């Protein structure tokens, strides 16, 4: 029994450490110029932020609406008509993708690797 407890505590310690390192990796991941917007697993737009002009993009999902804004080479969710507004609160796209769970919308940087080509 003692053995199992010790193993569990070790497992938790390893887990926290791994998660912390993983956090650091994600936070250090630099943003690329290309942003992709997907909804329900389908690619809607691929945008080159360095070339895109300031604009607002409206995306609808089952009668609900998200408004994405591009300004000064940055992108964020301007409006969402879901109750939680988590995607709006996420702010400008930096490291972690902007996710709207209710409307199944994701804004993320395209990986610079060759495994992320979805077009």
């Amino acid at each position: 029994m003692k053995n199992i407890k010790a193993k569990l505590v070790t497992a938790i310690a390893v887990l926290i450490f791994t998660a912390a390192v993983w956090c650091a990796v994600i936070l250090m991941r630099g943003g690329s110029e290309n942003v992709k917007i997907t909804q329900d697993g389908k690619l809607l737009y691929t945008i080159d932020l360095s070339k895109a002009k300031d604009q607002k993009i409206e995306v609808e999902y089952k009668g609900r609406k998200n408004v994405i804004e591009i300004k000064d080479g940055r992108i964020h969710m301007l409006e969402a008509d879901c109750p939680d507004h988590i995607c709006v609160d996420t702010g400008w796209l930096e490291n972690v993708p902007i996710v709207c769970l209710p409307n199944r919308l994701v804004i993320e940087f395209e990986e610079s690797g060759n495994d992320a080509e979805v077009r």
Partner: protein
Amino acid sequence: MSTKRITQLGILTTIALIIFVVELRLPDLSFIPGMKLGLANIVTVYAVYRYTAKEAAMILFSRILLGSIFGGNMSALIYSLNGGIMCLLGMLALRKILDERRMWVSSVIGATLHNIGQTLAAIAVMRTTAVIAYLPFLLVAGCLAGAFTGLCAQSVAGRVKAR
């Protein structure tokens, strides 16, 4: 099931629900929007240790269902439900190994399983793996929140006589 038992389960569900609704009104605690402490799980952890598996499941699922109705966010139900199921199964397995003085360890693992379950549901629903980027942050916060809720549950259990 005796009337006394049903009343106890009802009261526990109500307490969990009140904590849940009050917590929804609190401002965001961290830099990840939408991240919560999950204080309602103080009741879940307590119920896992003091009630049968079926009773603990009844409390948890009533709270999740009513909580998402009261919170006005039914679309979040699938994520909470999947997280809740994984967390509950994990803690029910652990309660045999970890006694009441180790509730908090069980709670930490339960919180972790909750985060993994939530993320798996999100991957399945959203059909994208982009949401995994949130998992490590959820795990770190989940461990802290899990330890806190577990210690709270332990302190409650210390004040309530075992059956």
